Structures are given as C-alpha cells and as structure tokens.
C-alpha cells in the first residue's frame, strides 16, 4: 500500500512540481506550439525534396513527439531536484526506490500521449493526411507504447542526471538523435546499415513503423510483433535506468556528490 501511494501520489506531486516552474505559458508554446511547426517543417522539406508523402511525416513526427515529455520531463525531474537542493532529502527517505522512480514517469507518459494526439490532429487539419476512425484505437495503443518506451529512455537520462553536471544538454542530444536514427523523417532503408542497427535498438523506431502500417490500413494484430519489440525495448531501458539510478545513488552517497551542481 505504501509503495502504491509513493507511486501514484509521489508521481502526481512530482508532476505538479514540474509545472510549478513549468507554467502553462511555458507548456503551451513548447509542448503544443513547437510540434505544429516541427511537423510542417519536415512535411514541407519532404514535399520539396520529393522524399515521401505528408502521411509519412505526420505519423513519424507525431509519434516522435510523444518522446519529448518523457525525456525532457525525466531530465527535469532529477535535474530539478538537484538544482533545488531537494535530492538529498529525497534520497534520505526510506521509500522504495522503484515506485519512487517509476511513479514520476507515469504522468509524463500521459503527457506524451496528449502531445502526440495533438500532433496527429494538427497533421490532419493542416496537411494532406487522413485517418479513419477505425484506425484510431490501434494508433492510440502504438503511441502509448512508444511514449512508455521513450519515457524509459528518459529515465536513463534522468539517472545519468545524478552524475553528469548538465543533464539538459544530454536530454537535448538524445531527443535530436532520435530524429536522426529512428526513421522519423528518413526512411530507415535509406540510412547506412550501422545507423539502422542503432535505430532498431532505440525506442520509437518500431513504434513509428507500426504506426505507419496502421495508418496504411494494417490491423493491430498484424503489427503486434513491432509493438512487443517496442515494449521490450522500453522495458530494457527502464531496467537499465533503475540499475543506473541505484548505482549513482550509492556512488553519490559515497562521494558526497548528490547535490553537486
């Protein structure tokens, strides 16, 4: 029961704290405004370079945008605790680390789904992109799984935030790298083999592939292998993140570097 409370209440409070410094006037332009222009930007490059149709870019970018909240949010959660000097009191609590850690991810996954849904609507309104009502539930599943996988990667970034000095630099670098490696705007087969291999080990790649297939009319059952792979990648990153978190916590205590900023 205590663990459930730490997971849900702790996660909720952490998310609210995030918005204490991340006011709606920050949230709306960053999480909803910028995505509109990201989709338009890449869709227009696609038209100009004659790479693919609008659907390719709307689906790729809308799914990719589900990663923003998870990665930046987790970086801010840990980085913010460090910045405001509250990390040590948090680490001094007897609360189990697993619910403490994962509870902070849950609201960010929901946030990622909202951003992604908004991006799909923008694509449908402004570009040559159609989506049947029948495809929406399947797409929602794919976006939820991708948001989970990306938030798991965000957990890794957040864990590294216990050690590295500038976690926001790392978060930015990770988000930009996803744009390059995961087939968001470039067909995977156009990338060199090694880049494709890196992309296949990252969150998003399989999710985007599944979402594109669904947008083309495939059923959820026919892309389940992609969804399971995405889920597995997310689980693996979450496990790595937890291990890193515990390791850096122990190291931080030993070297008294928890609050080094």
């Amino acid at each position, binding site marked *: 029961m205590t663990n459930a409370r730490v997971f849900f209440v702790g996660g909720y409070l952490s998310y609210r704290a995030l918005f204490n410094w991340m*006011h709606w*006037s*920050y*949230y*709306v*332009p*960053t999480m909803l*405004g*910028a995505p509109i*222009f*990201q989709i*338009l*930007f890449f869709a*227009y*490059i*696609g*038209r*100009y*370079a*004659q*790479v693919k149709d609008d659907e390719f870019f709307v689906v790729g970018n809308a799914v990719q945008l589900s990663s923003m909240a998870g990665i930046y949010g987790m970086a801010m959660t840990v980085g913010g605790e460090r910045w405001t000097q509250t990390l040590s009191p948090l680490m001094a609590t007897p609360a189990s680390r697993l619910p403490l850690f994962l509870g902070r991810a849950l609201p960010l996954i929901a946030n990622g789904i909202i951003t992604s849904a908004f991006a799909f609507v923008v694509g449908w309104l402004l570009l040559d992109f159609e989506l049947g009502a029948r495809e929406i539930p399947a797409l929602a599943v794919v976006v939820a799984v991708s948001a989970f996988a990306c938030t798991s990667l965000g957990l890794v970034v957040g864990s590294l935030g216990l050690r590295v000095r*500038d976690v*926001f*630099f790392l978060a*930015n*670098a990770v988000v*930009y*790298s996803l*744009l*390059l490696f995961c087939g968001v*705007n*470039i*067909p995977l087969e*156009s*990338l060199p083999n090694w880049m494709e291999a890196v992309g296949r080990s990252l969150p998003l790649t399989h999710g985007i592939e599944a979402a594109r297939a669904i947008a083309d009319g495939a059923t959820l059952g026919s892309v389940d292998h992609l969804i399971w792979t995405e889920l597995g990648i997310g689980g693996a990153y979450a496990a790595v993140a937890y291990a890193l978190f515990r390791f850096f916590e122990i190291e931080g205590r030993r070297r008294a570097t928890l609050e080094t900023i």
Partner: protein
Amino acid sequence: MRILRLLWVGWKFHVKSLTLSAFFILTSILQPIIFASVAYFMFRTGAREGTLLYVALGAGMMGIWSSTLFGSGGAIQWQRWQGTLEYCIAVPPPFLLVILPLTLATATIGLYSLTATLVWGWLFFDVPLEVADPLAFAVALPVAVVGLGLLGLILASTFVMYRNANALSNLLEYPVWLVTGLLVSLSLMPGWVGPISWVLAPTWGVNALREAAIAGNPWPEIGMCLVLGAVYLVIGHFALQHFERLARERATLSLT
C-alpha cells in the same frame, strides 16, 4: 572611436563567454550537425536534383538563427539572473551599446554552425565546397551575421516583456526556419508567407550565401540584409528605451 572600442571589446568578451557554454555548443554545433544530416539524407533519398551545398548552407543558417534566437531572446533575462542588469543600465554608455555586442556575439557563435555543417557535409556526404565567388561569399557571411545580430536586438528588447522568453524561443525556431526558405523553396509556401519572409534577415542572408556559393548575383541580397539591419537597429533602439523606462518606473530591473 570609443563606441567602436566598446562594441569590439563587448563582442569579443561575449563570444569567448558563449563559447564556454555547453548549451551554445549544443545549439551551434551538435544540433545543426544532426539537422544537417537529416536534411542530407532526405535530399539524397528524394527525387529532387540539386547540390547538397544548398542544403549545407541552409542547415548552417538554421544554426545561426537558433543561437541568435536563444542567445538574444534571453540576453536581458540572463543579465537579470546574474544580477548584472542594473550595472549594465547604470554605466555611462547607452544600454543599446551594452546589449548590442551580446546580440551580435550570439549570431557570431552561429558561424560555428555553418562551419560545422559544411565540414560535416564535405567529410561524410560529399558536399562540394567550391565557392563560385569567394569575395562575395566573404562579404555576404559577416553581413548575414550582422543582420541576424541586429534582429537579435529586437528579440532581446521584446522577449524580456514575456515571462517565459525561453518558451517563445522554443516556439519560434521551426517557423523561421520554414518561412525564410532555409531548406525549402519559398515557392512551395502559401502566398502570405512571402511578405513575412521579406522582413526577416535570414531569408536574404541565406540567399546571399547561396548566390555567392553556387553562382549568381548576391549583391542585392547583401544590400537587403544591410537595409533590414538598419531598420532592426532603429526598432531595437526604441524598444530598448521603452523597456528601460518601464523597468525604472516599476522598479523591476532586478526582478527574477
């Protein structure tokens, strides 16, 4: 002479200071390289014929815009956080001459972007680095940087009125990349985008660089960059005066 010395010393100081910032290294080197790579792959995959130098210059200019946008947009706010804004305003030279070197420096830092995208493209994507008119290119580059730096002056003096200037910077990065035709021809855009692009220095800056590099006549674009720069300077001057007056009246200079 004193004014030139102040501008020179301020510019040099801020360029050195920004070069040590991890955030600006990200904005001006890593981010443009990643975006340039995405663009190179897209243009390679696509059916459109043309030189990748066009893409490299556009991607480099994207970096110059990003560093100007984030650097200049937050310039006054930074002085506030560091507690130096009162001193900047209290010193004898006009505030304009104190803040202008900073906005010019943020645009100058963007030159790292252009260098990075050109070298990256040459090393890994076979981007040809032959410049058709080196003299015009050598003129167009600093003019484009000054044009953007002066646009930065407007950003600095107006964003400070907005509580979350960073959010505004986040919002304005992609749209300006789009409407100034850095990677997409403006002929593809709706007609109403044209007039917006005409009043933005990056449009003329990137066209000047392309005309000089690929062949053509860059001088009209260079001229437009200079004219726009002069207009930005006048607008920035009045906007800064307005900010200074409001901040003194409301005693909000040190407000963080």
